């Protein structure tokens, strides 16, 4: 009986520790934390105060990754196909308009667009320091209508036990902070910035 209990507890512990996939966001190889300055190679630096986005896992389950919530960086386990994994970054149009309001769809998480059915797929807020000058920015990137849908399906090379790595330098180095420090609407620019973000998935 004792052996059985020990086995069960060990199995549960194994899945708790190893049965998850860690999301690791980085800038030039340095893990991203909120409210911290990160120097860029060109001398500029960036400070992120909010960063969250939606992912659709191979199991078709939707998750909201929020850097301010450490638990959200641990994804439920998903199996691999030949050391690759097919992820959807951002909800597709069906998910956007499903009318579901539970779990990660809960408007409570601040991703629901009240005035325009659908969800923000990526929220990022912070300050970019360019040539010594601070440029606050706030981007709510979303929209599900063609040709500016913020939803990309991507096959990613990934090995079991490794974190899911997302490099943010391309996204953060191309923020139009001088001309468009805020984006709250779907459109070409939101689409482009979102695409930059998806290219950071390894």
């Amino acid at each position, binding site marked *: 009986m004792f052996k059985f209990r020990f086995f069960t507890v060990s199995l549960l512990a194994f899945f708790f520790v190893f049965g998850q996939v860690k999301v690791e966001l980085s800038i030039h190889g340095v893990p991203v934390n909120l409210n911290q300055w990160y120097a860029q190679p060109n001398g500029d630096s960036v400070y992120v105060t909010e960063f969250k986005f939606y992912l659709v896992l191979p199991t078709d389950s939707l998750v909201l990754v929020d850097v301010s919530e450490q638990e959200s960086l641990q994804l439920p386990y998903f199996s691999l196909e030949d050391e690759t994994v097919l992820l959807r970054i951002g909800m597709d149009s069906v998910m956007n*308009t499903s*009318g*579901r*309001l*539970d779990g990660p769809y*809960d*408007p*409570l998480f601040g991703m*629901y667009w*009240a*005035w*325009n*059915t659908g969800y923000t797929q990526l929220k990022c807020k912070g300050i970019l320091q360019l040539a010594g000058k601070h440029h606050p920015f706030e981007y709510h990137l979303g929209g599900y*209508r063609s040709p*500016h849908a913020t939803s990309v399906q991507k096959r990613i090379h990934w090995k079991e036990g490794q974190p899911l790595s997302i490099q943010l330098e391309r996204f953060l180095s191309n923020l139009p902070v001088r001309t468009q420090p805020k984006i709250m*609407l*779907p*459109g070409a620019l939101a689409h482009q910035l979102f695409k930059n973000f998806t290219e950071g998935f390894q």
Partner: protein
Amino acid sequence: MKTVFFIMLSLGLCAVALVAPNQELDFFVPQGWPKPRYNFESNPLSQEGFELGRSLFYDPILSKDSTVSCSSCHLQFTAFAHVDHPTSHGVDSRVGKRNAPGLMNLAWAPYFHWDGGVLSLNGQAVNPITHPDEMGSDLATVLVKLKREKEYAAVFKKVFGTEDIKTQHVLKALAQFTVSLVSYNSKYDRMTRKEVKFSEQEKKGYALFLKHCNQCHKEPLFTNYEFKSNGIGVNTALVDSGRANITGKAKDAFLFRVPTLRNLEYSFPYMHDGRFSKLKEVMEHYAHPANWAFPISTEPVKKKYMLNLAQQKDIIAFLKTLTDKGFLFSPQFGYSSIRE
């Protein structure tokens, strides 16, 4: 022995009452109307859910300072519109930029708001609850406030099976009430059911309506749910590009949803910005193409119609047959509160 039996029986009945399932509520579709678009499977109606939604609709607890409820801008006796205010005011007397539309027959609507930006009635209430010019609150605060109210906790548990009130429960309860606001008993409806007859003037007005207005304000819902510009011109004080806000397309600039005309006798003012306070002003606008401003949707221009004063009066007489006093003054949709 008898006393013990009755005590046991009473306790048993109380227990049954406490765990009794919600009373299913049938949704009535008037004869000849199209199939409702609302997905009732996503939010099965019950008497308890309807009453919970009704109480929330009338409860200012949803606003940031508990001063404004849904009913502040959607009053029953004005067809759930906001009478006498071109655009509605919310918390801190902040004024919005659109005329609060009447709420009725929402089960048939493919989208909501003047620009059609909201596709689901279940999620619609997030907008007024969180909009700074309306209730100005946030969902987390609303949930905290509701959980503090023991009457609400008990009813939410009864309807949704949990005292842990979530956003979806609040929104779905509100939708159960608003989707139930069906107006189908106007004189027009009774005429189509051959229960009453129109007067001569109403008949003439109806014939003119079918000729000139029915293309957009299509029977029996009196809207075709399309987006149009009716030539009233851009309101430069409000800077509202309408449908283009949602689609991002230039061709949709200054287009707004075609509203239903049901109960319009009571739902003044008219147009998305509430610029006309009287029906005769609306008729004057449509009757005089020379007054129409750019942009304008094509239908009225093609017809180039001009209605004389008598014809305008006839149409107004018909429009008044769309008033459904049973709906406007039904106690079923009136104020209710489950809070003490």
